[in-house]
């Protein structure tokens, strides 16, 4: 990664920098952040604070919530927005603090692999949830 700086008063940017990815990333953090304020604070309020909080959560509680498409959609949106928002934040942190190109590369590979794993597993669980799954020992 080399940082190409414009010459002072350069009329146009070097062609290598003509991607707007970082602008899109910056904007995404703000838009998803706004949605996550509702989704995550609502989730924490219901799951941790109201009506006994975490002590009333069990399989039956989850089955009751995911019988409603509203909460399925809530949780799926929250999963995707939070994972991409958090992953993009961690990408920024890695870019800021990793000193060697190789370290930065491998940390980001680990980050992207974990994001794909979590998004795939979480989506799979929401889409295939089965309230009648048998109890095991």
């Amino acid at each position, binding site marked *: 990664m080399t940082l190409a700086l414009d010459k002072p008063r350069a009329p146009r940017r070097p062609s290598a920098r003509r991607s707007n990815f970082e602008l899109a990333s910056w904007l995404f953090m703000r838009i998803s952040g706004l949605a996550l304020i509702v989704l995550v604070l609502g989730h924490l309020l219901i799951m941790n604070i109201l009506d006994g*909080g975490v002590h009333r959560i069990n399989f039956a509680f*989850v089955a009751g919530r995911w019988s409603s498409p509203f909460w399925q959609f809530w949780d799926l949106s929250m999963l995707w927005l939070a994972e991409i928002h958090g992953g993009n934040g*961690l990408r920024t942190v890695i870019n800021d603090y990793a000193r060697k190109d190789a370290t930065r590369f491998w940390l980001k590979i680990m980050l992207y692999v974990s994001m794909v794993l*979590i998004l795939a*597993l979480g989506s799979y669980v929401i889409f295939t949830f089965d309230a009648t*799954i048998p109890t*095991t020992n």
Partner: protein
Amino acid sequence: MGGTPISKSISDVGGLLPMSDSAVATEQVPPRGSRRTGTLYRGDPGMWSWVAHRITGVLTFFFLFAHVLDTALVRVSPNAYDEIIGTYKTPVVNLLEVGLVGAVLYHALNGLRVMLVDFWSRGPKFQKPMLWTIIGIWVVVMVPGAYFMLERTARDLFGGN
């Protein structure tokens, strides 16, 4: 990311210029090359709000990783899920949940402040009063929040009715 006033003391890093911060403006400028006093940038509250935003964000991201894995146990069996959720109800983890809610709430409130700094024309001018405001809101929400989260655990641990 965003909204952090860092420009003020960049020129102070080398200790070549006196600090412009009012708290130290009356101090004597240390002799050139002295590293002992006055040349370390200790930060505006805006910088610390940015540090706290990063730390709470990274911690929340790691928790999300663990949380999706534990929730995935609903696809294994009801008792596998109930068992892992049981750890969330233990006193130590219950206390960590208060920390999680506090971290997420700070990140949410400060994120709003960053957006106001970025998009509101008068946001940069009010960044510091907005920081005190979100800290005030955080305390007002966390005191009853922590009470409801810990009530059951405190009752189980210390008796009562």
